[in-house]
């Protein structure tokens, strides 16, 4: 391991490793069958370097296991943001970063030749103009520098108005401290707090799912496609079988589950003329294709369908266009009124009716009632009846209950 480096050049491979470590947290060396032992050792050592305070080692019969012990109740920052801060660079990159930005702090515009000369005279460092120009152009693209033409000469300058404004306004620090842990693209908020030398010490997030930050670059590409109203080609790796497939769609919206943190792309599939959802953590690459003239039309169609979407499915298992589910629950009035509140708050537009004292009915019509079962089960202990036009859903509910009675030795 003499050539071991903490930093990496490419994110996708590491994304998979970190996700596996985070999600499973128990795989030993031998269980990473697809990878060479050397690769496994290096990835594991890197992970231990980046996330040292959160790495837990356990010793099992089949060897030592490492896992990530992350309790989101105790976090001020998402530890997995560290993974984004590991891009490798050259000696030139880091030297030019600090010296060019230092040189241009006063807002003066300088050409690549002038910058090269001043790097030598003021900092005693020698670079060729071409290298300096390339770095300046890269920084213009990244938004760190601006470019202005004067005749044939191209000048580079730095406008730090926004950075200085942010530094002066402490209220912004609080906003960033909150959003970096609570909103999408928290990593960007986090690097801003780094730049302002500020750490979150005021906010926590109750339902925080750290691992999904690893999908943020995929999300960025999908939003870019939506902004351009472009179709995309997706490479998708199945989470069960591990098979890789490609598919094309018009990306319309990102669906998010607040209960699991999972994010999905909802897109329109022109071939099958259907809406479909893809988990972001299964999407490996996004390639932008041609612009779609019908983006707005499909997006409106999606909005019209929204009241019938329970989760991410647009079709039930029995081929019906819409399925109706009716659940009757017992509520000990007035003490258990919170159950009625739950039905209204969590029922996604379903109708809640008091049908007699202590009995309420919840009714909704959606594309796929099968998706509702996890939520329905949270009312176990109060359900008087469950009826569904998709009989397989009804059967599954009662069959699962029977299995649970048996599993926990309830009744006779």
């Amino acid at each position: 391991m003499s050539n071991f480096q903490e930093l990496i050049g490419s994110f996708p491979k590491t994304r998979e490793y970190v996700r596996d470590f985070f999600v499973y947290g128990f795989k030993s060396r031998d269980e990473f069958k697809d990878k060479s032992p050397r690769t496994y050792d290096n990835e594991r050592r890197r992970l231990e370097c980046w996330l040292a305070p959160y790495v837990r080692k356990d010793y099992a019969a089949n060897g030592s296991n490492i896992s990530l012990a992350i309790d989101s109740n105790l976090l001020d920052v998402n530890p997995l943001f560290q993974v984004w801060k590991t891009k490798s660079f050259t000696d030139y990159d880091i030297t030019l970063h600090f010296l060019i930005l230092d040189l241009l702090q006063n807002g003066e515009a300088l050409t690549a030749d002038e910058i090269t000369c001043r790097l030598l005279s003021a900092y005693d460092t020698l670079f060729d103009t071409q290298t300096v120009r390339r770095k300046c152009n890269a920084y213009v693209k990244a938004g760190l520098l601006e470019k202005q033409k004067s005749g044939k000469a191209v000048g580079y300058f730095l406008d730090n108005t926004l950075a200085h404004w942010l530094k002066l306004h402490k209220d912004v620090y609080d906003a960033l401290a909150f959003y970096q842990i609570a909103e999408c693209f928290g990593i960007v908020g986090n690097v801003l707090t780094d730049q302002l030398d500020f750490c979150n010490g005021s906010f926590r997030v109750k339902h925080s799912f750290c691992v999904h930050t690893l999908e943020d670059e995929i999300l960025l590409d999908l939003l870019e496609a939506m902004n351009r109203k472009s179709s995309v080609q997706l490479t998708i790796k199945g989470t069960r079988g591990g098979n890789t497939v490609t598919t094309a769609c018009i990306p319309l919206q990102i669906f998010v589950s607040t209960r699991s943190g999972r994010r999905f792309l909802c897109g329109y599939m022109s071939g099958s003329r259907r809406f479909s959802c893809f988990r972001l953590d299964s999407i490996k690459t996004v390639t932008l294709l041609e612009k779609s003239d019908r983006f707005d039309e499909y997006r409106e169609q999606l909005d019209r369908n929204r009241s019938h979407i329970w989760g991410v499915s647009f079709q039930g298992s029995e081929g019906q266009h819409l399925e109706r589910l009716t659940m009757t629950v017992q509520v000990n009035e007035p003490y258990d009124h919170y159950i009625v509140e739950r039905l209204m708050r969590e029922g996604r537009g379903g109708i809640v009716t008091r049908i007699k004292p202590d009995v309420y009915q919840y009714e909704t019509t959606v594309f796929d009632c099968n998706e509702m079962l996890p939520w329905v089960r949270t009312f176990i202990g109060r359900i008087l009846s469950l009826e569904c036009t998709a009989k397989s859903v009804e059967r599954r509910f009662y069959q699962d209950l029977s299995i649970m009675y048996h599993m926990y030795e309830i009744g006779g």
Partner: protein
Amino acid sequence: MEIFSEIYNCYYQVLRHLLCTKAPATLEEMRSQVCQEGFLESMLSIIPKLESGSWNLLRKDGNLYLSKLTSDFTVPISALERSYLKALLNDARIGLFLTPSQTASLGSMLAETPPLWKPEQFYYYDRFADGDPYQDENYRRIFRTLLGAQKNRQYVNIDYTSPQGKRVHHYYVPARLEYSVKNDKFRLLALEGRHPQKMKLAILNISRMQNVTATDQTLDAAVDLNQIIRDSYEKEPLRLHITNKRNALERAMLHFANYEKNTKKVDENNYECLIYYNKTMETELLIEVLSFGPMLKVVGNDSFLADLKTRLLKQQTLQMVSSSTPHITETS
């Protein structure tokens, strides 16, 4: 725009701190700083580069190293960061932090910048429908008072309406403002008591607060909130057995990812998962476990298992007396 870029690299951040220190530093001092701020083995990469001059950013004077930077160095805001800030201006909660004039100033500086995302590009399909009133002026005032007091470890007098509808006054020190993505609500993690060693944790919904006033009294010493939370966890964690059918393992691992957990493989297809929780989380955790149906089996602790069985027994009794018995007949 790239997120995975060297300009956000941890080493750049460490170097900025080293280089912006105007005082000369010894190699040992630099080592110490790199160890504090870098990754576990960063020192092995950074220090040789600085010592050898491969990163030509320091001047050596005897045993001391001096930064070559001459300005009051400020890192400019990248296009990605600008775009992120612009997106925040569209968020309903931004008014909790920024005044209208600050929002307007930031907005005008970002006039030409497209937002990184727009609210309508996301759909939170299982978010609860009764989120907090972020536009309400009294809510905003309370939020800011709590935030200010939290930073100064100040006691606040909170006038609160309990879930049972009772109006109560009490003194607390705000410890954190906790946001729930699922509920779209803020809660206050508050410390109750006089002595830093004997503080108790209370959790209060901010939307239930009628009024909050900061007092002149402060808590003398910092309190280790995480230790208080850890101490509140049940001695025996929730113990689940998972059989890996219908992708149950991955689903459970992701679903319970927000809890501290420890998972072990028992045999080829069976796993045991320990989840650490406290009384305030218990009901929510119980209904989350129930939502998985027979895919998960609770084997401990005794109290959690008893609660689960009570619910199942009630359910079985309801089924027997309700008119829906045909369903039972159908499946039994």
